[in-house]
């Protein structure tokens, strides 16, 4: 088991390094005259050159990368070109907000998708049809449209929650909950239907298997068979899809944060993109990749717990 974890961890590190290298060279190689962009068109050529030297941009690309990488392994991802703030501070300060959205959405997805998927698989009939219909809608309609609709209905028309803004958990737990409720729902719709479809499909597949009949023949109740055995066997594929959906949730958070004015990493990404703040964009890219790798590791561990065969793989 330890060996399994270590191997997955190593693969994750390789992935992060690959992304860092790719992103660094793509971003820095195509950056153009950065000093001019930062200082504006009125600055003299001298000050622009000075700025470029100050940022280390006059060095060859490989040596720039060596500087950046040697800092990165120590947790120093450079400073924002515009504000001079440390990239790691800027990113980690906002990561907690995004994580509360994304983790909230993951939990909501897992719970609702299992309920819907099991219902559709077990009841069949109109329940199944309804779940299938909602799935098409939820899959097709972009999350930010759902988010706008939720703002319109619940925050503006019904005035139930504050339309925008974010309250920290430490300041007011109930305020925090009410500030992330709509964003989390908007974010989750697409992943809920994706995972529910998978739960439904693998439940139906598992219910057809021989051992389910044998379990029933042993006098186990339907409830025990379905929730104790079938669901656990069906959970593996659903968990893999949940892992894929997590990446989508991180992406969706960029838009949802904008709509609900939530100061998360997505807002940082958008403002850094508009300004062309390459160190900050790179920091966001790497933070996202690290999150995805960690999540995949968690999914692998859960898979190992769910299925003994995976543990030895």
């Amino acid at each position, binding site marked *: 088991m330890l060996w399994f974890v270590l191997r997955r961890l190593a693969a994750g590190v390789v992935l992060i390094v690959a992304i860092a290298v790719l992103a660094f060279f*793509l971003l820095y190689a195509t950056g153009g005259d950065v000093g001019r962009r930062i200082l504006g068109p009125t600055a003299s050529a001298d000050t622009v050159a000075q700025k470029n030297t100050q940022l280390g941009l006059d060095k060859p690309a490989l040596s720039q990368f060596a500087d950046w990488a040697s800092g990165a392994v120590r947790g120093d991802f450079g400073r924002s070109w515009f504000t001079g703030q440390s990239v790691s501070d800027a990113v980690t300060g906002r990561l907690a907000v995004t994580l509360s959205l994304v983790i909230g959405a993951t939990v909501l997805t897992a719970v609702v998708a299992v309920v819907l998927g099991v219902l559709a698989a077990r009841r069949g009939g109109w329940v199944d049809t309804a779940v299938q219909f909602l799935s098409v809608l939820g899959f097709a309609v972009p999350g930010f449209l759902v988010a706008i609709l939720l703002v319109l209905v619940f925050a503006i028309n019904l005035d139930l929650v504050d339309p925008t803004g974010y309250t920290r958990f430490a300041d007011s737990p109930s305020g925090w909950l009410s500030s992330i409720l709509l964003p989390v729902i908007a974010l989750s719709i697409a992943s809920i239907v994706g995972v529910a479809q998978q739960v439904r499909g693998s439940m139906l597949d598992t219910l057809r298997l021989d051992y389910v009949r044998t379990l029933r023949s*042993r006098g186990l109740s339907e409830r025990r068979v379905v929730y104790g055995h079938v669901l656990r066997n069906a959970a593996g594929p659903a968990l893999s899809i949940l892992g894929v959906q997590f990446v989508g949730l991180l992406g969706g958070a960029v838009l949802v944060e904008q709509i609900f004015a939530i100061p998360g990493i997505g807002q940082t990404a958008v403002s850094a993109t508009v300004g062309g703040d390459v160190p900050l964009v790179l920091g966001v890219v790497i933070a996202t990749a690290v999150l995805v790798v960690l999540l995949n590791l968690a999914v692998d561990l859960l898979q190992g717990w769910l299925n003994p065969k995976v543990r030895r793989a």
Partner: protein
Amino acid sequence: MTTTAAPTDLPAVRTLERTARVSLVRRVLRSPVGAVSLVFLLLVVLAAVFAPLLAPQDPDFASARDVLAPPGGDHLLGTDGSGRDILSRLLYASRLSLSGAATAVGVAAAIGITAGLLAGYYGRWSESVASSVSSVFMALPAIVVLLAARTVLGPSPYTTMIVLGVLVSPAFYRVVSAAVAGVRQELYVDAARVSGLSDGRIIARHILTVVRAPAIILAAGMAGIAITLQAGLDFLGLGDPQRPSWGGMLSDAFAAIYREPLTLLWPSLAIGLTCIALVLLGSAVRDALERSGRPRRRRRRDAAPPAASLAESVVVHDEPTGARAEELLHVRDLAVGYDQPDGSTTEVVHGVELSVHRGEIHGLIGESGSGKTQTAFAVMRLLAAGGRIVRGSIEFEGADLATLSEKEMTRLRGRRIAYVPQEPMSNLDPVFTVGHQLTEPMRVALGLSRTAARTRALDLLARVGIPDPQRTFAAYPHQISGGMAQRVLIAGAVSCGPDLLIADEPTTALDVTVQAEVLDLLRDLQRESSMGVLLVTHNFGVVADLCDRVSVMRAGRIVETGPTRAVFATPRHEYTRSLFDAVLEDTAPRGPLVPTTQGAQA
């Protein structure tokens, strides 16, 4: 001969392919969902193409007098916060969305299909390269990559969509390379190659035909993603501000959400409906494919002679004199049917009569598909989905199992009626230990404590001849052999002391040496507790070895029944005799049997 045959053959194949293409479009159009979504998408395309003709105004003309004008009058859909005509902007914006989506899909298709064709057709050397590339692409949300690209490449919508196309191209690659690898094995591609066609022409003619439909489904999904992402970027203000876009309009309207929420509706509808239409089109194509790919099921069974024509009397051998033990199970006129999608019911067992007495092993023999397993499942009320008892009764200790509630059946199963399946490995839950699967029923059905159940399970494992019970108890199913698994299943079946054991070909999946041991075990267990056993088998050797009584089944009915000795000594039904002949002629007992329609008439 072969050289002349090939050219005359090929046009025929091509015609076939063309008709397949035509009928796919027709099938998609025939489904209401497919037709509606296709027509809607066509309208969007037309609106985009003819936007300059259709738009009532210049999309960028801002009228200070008409800021946020309501729908109607000069402005059919009203105006936005800058006084621009919403309908005109919507029409022009559809050009950007569609051309952007087309760019992304085109780039993804060009890269993915080319790479997929090459890799799938020429070999799998590129498989690992492609999977590493796609794992890098998949590790980041597309929008984060697009933001990074936008940082350095600027706000051009087409650059963004080209990057997106590259990002999603592995999906095309995977579908195409898998389809091609499948087609490569097909005989007609071999035939084409033998007949001297170049690889390029084979790819063009045969393989592209196969991947066409999956590619359409994929392209529809991707176009939806592209439109969504592009609208998202425009909404964030990262698009080209000079051009009207659906996302940009949404952003303008969102800024005016308190003043005029209605303006949100139009761009939302444009984005939402287009995406829904794309998804529905994709699923309509998939449905059309599945419908054509599915063989016409049940035809063969429908064509089988109706039940009445096979009606015949059962040959019943005389019982030997002397008292028999009490009767445990009496099946009367049992018919089992499966509900069909069209509402009809296909009967697979037609009026079976059968009884099992305590302490007696009753063999139910017949070839595959004769309905013996269905009869056994019906007794336990464990028929597959859609199956049900159409008529008849199953008496077990005074109760009719055919009419008991599911709850009452659950109480009987395991404790009173137990089951040993055919295929040992697929009948153990792979994610639980053997010990858990043995103890759970005992704790549920007998109310044993965890430790008591564990002790009993270990005793049982030892009883069924497992050399190291402790180790097997802790093992997962994939860690034990098939013979051991069957012993575990037998231990599980007898764990709650059942009166009736239903064994469905319990030795068929085992090695010959293990078969004899398992049969001995079954006989010993049966004698110890004087269970009644219903043994389903196709093997006369097993019947002769084990059974007190035998019923021969064919085509859903019992044709001959009686004490094993009597049936073996003087088989009277033609079919029974033919079964014996099949064994005596030294062919495999499972070999194809000639249907004895003559015997039925005799």
